[in-house]
């Protein structure tokens, strides 16, 4: 039974990044009923059971599509749904919390959120792993299996000021545990359970040597059984982190009942959904420039800095910024030159982050950062800090300096793909782990993921 819980949670891990079906978890309970084995002679896939044959992906795709059209119990009227499903499956197989497939609705909402226009409870939620398992840089062996077996947490990356999430006191760093009474499975719950099991085994071994330890064993055993029951009940009514994110971030009407972990305590909130806008580019009364990476930002930034020798730039609430826009903004504030590396970890030479045009004057910059400074915004800050151009105030940042690209499919669906990570120093150094040691920013850019 224990293994069943593990298995079902493992299964959750395998599919949670968007592969809607319960495919892998279902395999063990699911067999076929086959009539006479009517073998389909497909053009390129005829069975011969040799394992070294590699069928090209395009033929595979065509042949399976033909198979489904010919055999599946319901008529298939939309082939694009099949190819979208294939894209979803491929992206999900990366097991990467920043590489995600989105259907047309999701794409619309999340693309809008990137521009500061939010739906839902008014919080930007990201999937994150506190403890990335295994090395980020991999050699020949792919570690995607391990990666997909760990469940990311659904964490608040930023809160829109004035939104219902903000008014209720939700804070960046809080993470979601329940949405509408559905449990969001997470690795920690599973690890806690496994720790209990280990403790129980120890108590059992002790009791076998020393019978006076029996009461402790009994107490642990009943706690263990209670925890197992709870885990089973919760596993029966669960929602994967990625779907929980949709429930919290999509829709402009209605309420959602939620439970969060907030500073180590549970926080139960009933939140209204609505439409909320993050403040866009602008200059605060104290002169600080609010800089999100949205389309208008590079030009407005140039205007705002014209004739100035120093400036303060606020990079908080900058979570999903567009990488190219970030580079344009970098061109507006920094002299030409090299600003670190985008490492693809693919045993290729990393790309140099270059500022091509740059500024003539040497601006003195102060950057305000925090845990709502994430992704491209972190790269912006690290790049400037690495050259001694900017002073960093606040922090730590989110610790996730990835380059994320967005791709839209013809029917409005789309996906994101992490194409690199930033490293201010030697190529190959893991920006995420070593930034606190090697970067001149000290604490300000230490990894902020761990609390």
């Amino acid at each position: 039974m224990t293994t069943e819980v593990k298995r079902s949670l493992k299964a959750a891990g395998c599919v949670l990044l968007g592969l809607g079906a319960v495919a892998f978890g279902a395999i063990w309970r699911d067999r076929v009923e086959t009539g006479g084995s009517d073998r389909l002679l497909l053009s390129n896939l005829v069975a011969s059971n040799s394992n070294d044959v590699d069928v090209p992906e395009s033929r595979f795709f065509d042949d399976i599509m033909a198979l489904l059209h010919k055999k599946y119990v319901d008529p298939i009227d939309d082939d694009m749904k099949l190819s979208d499903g294939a894209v979803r499956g491929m992206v999900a197989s990366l097991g990467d919390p920043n590489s995600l497939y989105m259907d047309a609705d999701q794409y619309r909402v999340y693309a809008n959120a990137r521009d500061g226009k939010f739906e839902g409870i008014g919080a930007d939620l990201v999937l994150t792993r506190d403890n990335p398992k295994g090395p980020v840089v991999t050699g020949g062996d792919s570690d995607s299996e391990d990666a997909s077996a760990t469940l990311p947490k659904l964490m608040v990356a930023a809160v829109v000021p004035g939104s219902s999430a903000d008014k209720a006191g939700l804070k960046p760093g809080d993470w979601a545990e329940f949405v509408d009474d559905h449990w969001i499975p997470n690795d920690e719950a599973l690890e806690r359970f496994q720790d209990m099991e280990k403790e129980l085994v120890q108590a059992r071994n002790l009791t076998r040597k020393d019978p006076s330890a029996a009461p402790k064993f009994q107490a642990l055993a009943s706690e263990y059984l209670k925890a197992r029951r709870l885990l089973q009940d919760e596993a029966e009514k669960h929602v994967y982190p990625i779907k929980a994110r949709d429930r919290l971030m999509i829709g402009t009407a209605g309420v959602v009942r939620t439970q969060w972990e907030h500073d180590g305590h549970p926080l139960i909130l009933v939140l209204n959904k609505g439409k909320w806008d993050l403040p866009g580019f602008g200059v605060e009364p104290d002169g600080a420039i609010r800089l999100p990476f949205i389309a208008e930002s590079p030009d407005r930034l140039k205007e705002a800095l014209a004739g100035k020798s120093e400036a303060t730039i606020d990079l908080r609430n900058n979570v999903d910024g567009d990488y190219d826009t970030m580079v344009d903004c970098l061109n507006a504030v920094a002299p030409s030159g090299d600003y670190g590396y985008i490492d693809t970890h693919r045993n290729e030479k990393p790309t140099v982050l270059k500022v091509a045009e740059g500024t003539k004057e040497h601006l003195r910059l102060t950057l305000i950062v925090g845990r709502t400074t994430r992704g491209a915004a972190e790269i912006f800050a690290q790049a400037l800090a690495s050259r001694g151009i900017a002073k960093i105030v606040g922090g730590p940042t989110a610790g996730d300096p990835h380059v994320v690209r967005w791709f839209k499919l013809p029917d409005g669906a789309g996906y994101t793909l992490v194409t690199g990570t930033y490293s201010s120093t030697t190529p190959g150094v893991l920006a995420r782990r070593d930034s606190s040691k090697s970067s001149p920013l000290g604490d300000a850019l230490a990894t902020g993921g761990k609390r």
Partner: protein
Amino acid sequence: MRAVGFLVSLIVLFALGFSWRDIQSGDPADAISAFHGILGGSGAAKPLPEQEFQQAFNRIQVEYYRPIEPKKLKYAGISGMMASLGDPHTMFLVPQIAREFDRDTKANYVGVGAKLSTYTRHGDIVGARAVAVFSEGPGYAAGLRRGDVIVGVNGKSVEGLSVEEDVDRIMGQEGTLVKLSILKSGEGNPVVIAVRRSHVVTPTVESTYFPQYKVGYIYIASFSEPTAEQFDRELAKVEQNPLRGLVIDVRGNPGGYLETAVEMLSRFKANKVVVGMKMRDGSIDHEYTVGNMVHDFNYPIAILINGDSASAAEIFSGALRDYKVATLVGTHSYGKASVQEVYPFKDGSSGKVTIARYFLPLSGDIGRRVDEDGSYISGGLEPDVKVEEDDVLPDDLRNPPVNRTSDLPDPADDNQLRRAIEVVLSKAR
């Protein structure tokens, strides 16, 4: 004229509604090109599904920041494509899974005749423990026993390997030898035994007799090729005892072949419809039991089911309940009301596709309904006597240690089984 005006405003409203989503996302150009498509314009040529797939396949390989194995990516794409139909039973099986699946369903393969599970010590995989050794298999003849731990195959350590990997190494050509290094009962120094691989038929049916109740017990693990024959054999064994009732256990039974279920139902009822299948062209096929196989069960029967009893197991138990042959005890079953066929492909993988849906003679459609998160709402067979399973520690966590000689449950610590025994005894004459 007014009609025309009305029509025009309708069209405008339609256009607005049609493009609302894109206007919201600040991308009206998309709406215009999509609208163009409706009116039959050529617009920008829409890529074909296979082009969309190919493009994403290439892009992920070239642009994703970590190395990717093209084969894994291809299989993930095909899996996602099959999953997109929204049917959890239509799925792609990668070669490894396809092989295991085939082995399990046929219950008939070349090997040594043992059921293995991972054996760990201090959290590290040491080898594979034989949790069952089939007495008719070559492993048993060579001295392999339940509880032995296999730590090496053909002189090579299997430390750290998964059971599937162990099985791949142990299996091979019929008639060839495999050398197993084993720890007897998991202890001492390894001894090497040589086993000649041969055809093994997995026992899918086991039985025992509870003399204290005068009740027989038959456990059916799956409905595989040899199951009906094995059922007959175990039934004969049980019937050598004085019987006041019989408990048939299909808890955790994931199903198997429909023919096997029908063949077994023929022991209970002659010439009856056991299942109706609705095919993709709308036609309905009925499956009937045969007429000359009926066995005289002159005692009450209870069938134990739970949430992991699925497909053929549900047809078997549902039909026996519908024909008032048996009482169902336990918790509701899985609710799989569809039929799949497996299509093997050239590279060892296979595709499992739902080709029909079925319904039971009286219980009708038992298909599982889930909410949008996949959580169970309804479906499956409802038991006549509902009993949740008590929380009991797994054997390996118990103190004092449990030494079982078989995998079969003990009424002393299986409350569902105890209830099923009570049920048959209450109906016994």
